[in-house]
Every structure is written in C-alpha cells, then in structure tokens.
C-alpha cells in the first residue's frame, strides 16, 4: 500500500480527537470472540441478512453502522439470541450459538430504550441478573454498588427507576449488563435518545469504560460520527450486507464504494473519465481538476446505479489559498458560489473553472476551512485558488 492520503487539514470531527486516548495494544493477535459465517435471516419474503461474514476479536470495540433497515439491529439481536437465523452460523467465544437461548448466552445487551424495569429501584435493576449468583446478600449489594460506581451513579441505588433522567437510565442499563461480566456487551443505539452534549460525553465515557473492563463491545448505530469516534473497527451495512469492514481512518479516507463514502461524513463527487493507467495508478480526466493520476490504493468501486466513474474527496482535503501563496500540491481555480459559516470552520461551495465540461452543468465542490482569527472569510463570487493533491482523491469506477 502506498502512503495514505494526507488530508491537508485534520478532519472536522472535534470529538474524534478528544477521545482517541492512549494507543492501545494491537488487536490483530487476539482470539475471535464473535464469528459470523454466512448468516442469513428472512422475515417472510424480506431478506434481512444476506450472508454476513465477520470476525470480532476479543476486547474489540466494534460498530455495526448503517441506515435504518440495513439489518444492523437484526444482526445484533441474532448475536444476543433474540432472533433465530435461517442459515449460516454464529459463534461466540468459539461456541456455536445455534439452540443456545438468550438467557444462557455469554452476552448482555444495552437496549435502545434501556429497558429499565420501572417497578424496581436502581439497585434492584442493577442486581437483577444476580439472582442465582451464589454470593451472599451483602456481597451482591457491594457488587451492585461497585457497578453503580463504575458508571458514576454511586449512592443512587435506592432511587426509583422511573425518577431517572435519560443519561442516568443509560448508565443503569450499562451497570446492569456489566455486573454480569459478559464476554460481549451488545449496545443497540444506546446514545440515540440523548441530547447532543450528553451523547458526546457518553461516547467518551463508553470508550473509557470499555478499556477499563476489557470486554468486547458491539455497538449498533446509524450515526457515522459516533462510530468513527468510538470504534476500533466498523462494519458498514447496506440492505443486509456488509459493504465495508475497516478501521475508522481507512473507512474515512478510502471508502470501498461510493455509497459508503456518501454515508460516512461529507464527500464531494465529481464525474470523471478514465483515460488510462499503470500498475500503480489510474489516469482520469476530471472536469475542473484536469488530468489526474489516482494512486491504485485510492481506487474503489462504484455502486449499481452510479452514472459512471467519479472521483470523490473530503471537504477538508482541499484548501483555499490566500492570494499569491505557494502550495505543494496542485492548484486549480474557481469561484465561490456559497459560504456556510459554522463558527470554528466555514464551508465554501466552489464552482471550479471548466467543471461544466462533462455534461454542460457546472458542478460545485464543498471545501471546508478552519477559521483563523484575523483571516477574512471570502465572500460569494470571489475568485479563489484551490490547492489539493491527487493522493487525497478517491476514484470510484
């Protein structure tokens, strides 16, 4: 693999930096905790899972990401044992889960609705799964208090469950699952009911918690930012199939298909014509960008229904140059068509010169720039020079 395309600016994902804590040992050598082999699931005529193959390693923070209806929750419920499968095999910790009911699987779940028992106190909720635990009553109470402390709810044990806020319910649900020391913790959209600030706080807390307990976490989410922030690896699913399984950086920088690229973050797409190529690159003509050699590592596939080949790049992969400035990469020119100001950064929609060469319609590209104090935000209609490098373009063919 050639050098990874280096975005000229860091990605505009503030939480991503806040949470990428100390480097963790590589997961490559670890044993498989969950293995799905050709898992099929039908609801009547509806083909919900179309041959899912994946391996989740011990201690991994794994995310299933996709739009609603893509089968991610079905897959999670299949692992939990709430749904049977119509083909394939699911192994948890090397053991075939066929005919193993949900209540004896080594997995625990945090439900989307949290499923806090409303007739029990917080402590009774957390201790629900300890009924057959041989420990004494006092030891169990101490374990419950420890679990509550782990999620920051020390002293809340006596409260009625229905008197809790959304964030507190979430923590109770976590404590209730983790107290049983499962091999796998399954999280079904656990943060979707929280407001933005709370969600970002819980993302960081979940990552810390996962590193602390070392349990394999499998998270289902439709929020690509959440998946990028929290996961070691992400499986992007569309229509019952895994479209790409990769780490967050690879997923963001080199999406396997145009559809994945479109789902993860913002990406500009511009139609392209393939002119030729070599062993390590493909030469394409891109209206507004000229002729570009795309590194072979950056060549992905198009999806069914795409009009033809296209190139894509992230808004932060290009820079608007101040007048007269020199840039290391290539420079093309255009006109600012729209300015969207976000405080910390600004989106500029730029119509590149010659971008209408392909089909007679000018195509605009979105470029994001960090705002710097003292630097003027250019206005609509300003002619600008745009700096970019071929290594940060992805070709979908």
């Amino acid at each position, binding site marked *: 693999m050639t050098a990874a395309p280096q975005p000229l600016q860091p990605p505009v994902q503030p939480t991503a930096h806040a949470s990428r804590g100390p480097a963790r040992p590589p997961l490559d050598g670890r044993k498989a905790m969950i293995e799905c082999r050709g898992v099929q699931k039908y609801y009547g005529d509806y083909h919900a899972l179309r041959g899912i193959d994946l391996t989740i390693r011990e201690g991994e923070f794994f995310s299933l990401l996709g739009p609603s209806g893509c089968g991610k929750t079905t897959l999670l419920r299949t692992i939990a044992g*709430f749904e049977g499968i119509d083909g394939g095999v699911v192994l948890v910790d090397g053991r075939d889960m066929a005919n193993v009911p949900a*209540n004896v699987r080594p997995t625990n779940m945090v439900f989307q609705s949290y499923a806090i028992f409303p*007739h029990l106190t917080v402590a009774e909720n957390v201790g629900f799964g300890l*009924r057959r635990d041989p420990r004494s009553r006092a030891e169990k109470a101490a374990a419950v208090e420890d679990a509550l402390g782990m999620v920051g709810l020390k002293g809340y044990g006596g409260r009625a469950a229905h008197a809790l806020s959304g964030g507190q319910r979430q923590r109770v649900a976590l404590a209730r*699952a983790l107290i*049983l020391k499962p091999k796998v913790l399954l999280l079904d959209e656990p943060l979707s009911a929280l407001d933005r600030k709370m969600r970002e706080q819980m993302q960081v807390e979940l990552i810390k918690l996962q590193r602390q307990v070392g349990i394999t976490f499998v998270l289902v989410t439709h929020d690509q930012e959440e998946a990028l922030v929290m996961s070691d690896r992400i499986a992007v699913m569309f229509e019952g199939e895994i479209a790409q399984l990769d780490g967050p950086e690879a997923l963001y920088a080199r999406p396997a298909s145009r559809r994945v690229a479109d789902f993860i973050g913002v990406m500009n797409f511009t139609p392209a014509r393939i002119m030729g190529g070599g062993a390590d690159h493909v030469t394409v003509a891109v209206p507004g960008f000229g002729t570009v050699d795309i590194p072979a590592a950056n060549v992905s596939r198009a999806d069914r229904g795409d009009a033809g080949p296209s190139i894509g790049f992230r808004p932060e992969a290009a820079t608007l140059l101040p007048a007269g400035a020199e840039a290391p990469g290539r420079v093309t020119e255009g006109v600012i068509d729209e300015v969207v100001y976000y405080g910390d950064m600004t989106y500029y929609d730029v119509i590149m010169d010659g971008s209408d060469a392909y089909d007679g319609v000018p195509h605009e590209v979105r470029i994001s720039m960090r705002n710097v104090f003292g630097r003027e935000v250019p206005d609509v209609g300003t002619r600008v020079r745009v700096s970019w490098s071929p290594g940060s373009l992805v070709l979908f063919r």
Partner: protein
Amino acid sequence: MATANSTETGQGLRLIAPPLLYAILMLAVPLLTILAYSFFKDGYLTIVREFTLENYRATWADPIFRTILARSLMVAAMVTAVTVLMAFPVAYFLSFVVAPQRKALWIFLITIPFWTSYLVRVFLWKVILGFNGVINSGLKTIGLIDEPLKFLLYNTGSIVMTLSHSYAPFAILPIYVALEKIDRSLLEAGRDLGESRLMTFWRVTLPLAMPGVVAAVLIVFIPTIGDYVTPTVIGGGKIPMVANLIQAQMLDIDNKPLGSAIAISAMAVVAVLSLLFLFLNRRFLRVRA
C-alpha cells in the same frame, strides 16, 4: 391570570353541570337518604325521624346478618378469584399472541356477552344447568347418566360459575390494558439478564401487570358482593346473599331503617376490604414513567 383561571373553571363547571346534577340526584341523594334512614326509628309502615343507633346494633348483633355477610364475602372472593385467574390467560393471549391487526376483533368478540341483558344471561345459565337443562338432557341422551345431576344448580358453585362468566370481560380488559403497556424490551432484558421465560414472567410481566389485576379484582369483587339476581335465580333463593337480605328488610318486612343500616354496614365492609387490598398492593401501584 386569576380571571382567566376562574373563567376556565366556570366554563368547565357549566360543561359538566348536567351530568353532575344527574349524578347528584340519582347517586348522592339516594345514598344520603339511605344513610339518614339508617339512623331513624322504625314505626311499622312509617319512619320515626328520631336519631338512633339501634339499627346498627341490631344489624351487627344478628347472627343471620353476620352469616349472610360472611357468605357474600366468600362467594364474592371465590367469584373474583375464578374470574381473575381465568381472565389473566385470556388477556395474556390477547396481548402477546394475537396479531396486532386482529386485536380489535378479539376485544369485540369478548364483549359479545354484553349484547344481551344481564338477567337473560343469568336465566340462560339456569337453562344450561337446570334439572331438565342442556347438560342434564345431553348427558342423559348419550347415556352417561340415568338421573339428572342435582349438584349443577342451586348451590354456591353454580353462583360462582354464573357470576364469573358475567364479569369475565370486566376482568379481561383492565389486565389486557396493563399487559399492553409493558414495553416488550423489558421482557427481552429479563431473558438477557439470565432468566428463563417463566422467571421473566414472574419477575417482570406479573409485577407490571399488577395494576390491571388489582383493578380487575376490585371491579369484580365490589359488584358481586351486592349481586341480587344470581343468588335468586341460580341459587334458587336457598343461598341468600347480603343484597337479598336488604331486599327482604326494605320491601318484604318493610323495615327501611334496618334495611338501610344493613346496606350501609355492607358498604362499609366492602370499602374497608377494598382499601386494605389497595394498601397491600401499593408497591405495584406506584406511578411509573
């Protein structure tokens, strides 16, 4: 703000005035009359308007009243137990097994018994259970018995059977509503936390269904204590309940003050028992989000 509120209150009062007036006239006034009568003296065919506690003393000193009240409570308790125990599986089936689009049809079917009057239904049970009734003639025809079975009618069992059937929908519906309100993910959570289906039912479903069960118990228990028709028709008058006693005092013997005292005493007992029952189940009835 105060004016706006008082206007709204006035509007509300005007809106509910007709039914309120009706309720006061038809419920509160007769009830207060009965209460007043119970403290008056009986002057054979007339009522002497002098305060006395003699009626209550006579009521509670009378062993017949105590026996009949105890029997009424017993029958009502049996009816309640049978009705609620049989209604729970029906409500459970309705809530958990029947497909959502069929639920309305099932609820409709359950209310069909209400299409005929209560009296007609009670008489139908007599036709079914009677000496020459459906069961006896049926069993005779297929040769299982030579003589009609006499234990079918005119006993406590037949009263319980008849009343249970009559009050079944009243028990099914509140339990069904309570079961419907249970978030299904709670049951999955119970399983996920290591409990079998049976234990999940015991630890999650049943406690959460208890508000419905409590409502069903009260809805069945309170009216059956005062039931008057079934003991007469199905019990054949041989097993009088407290309502029959009141009827006898009020109309046959024409001792309205004593009849009123019996009625108020029975009401007080039912009220105390109901409140006690609510108190015992208070932990299931806490507000929930």
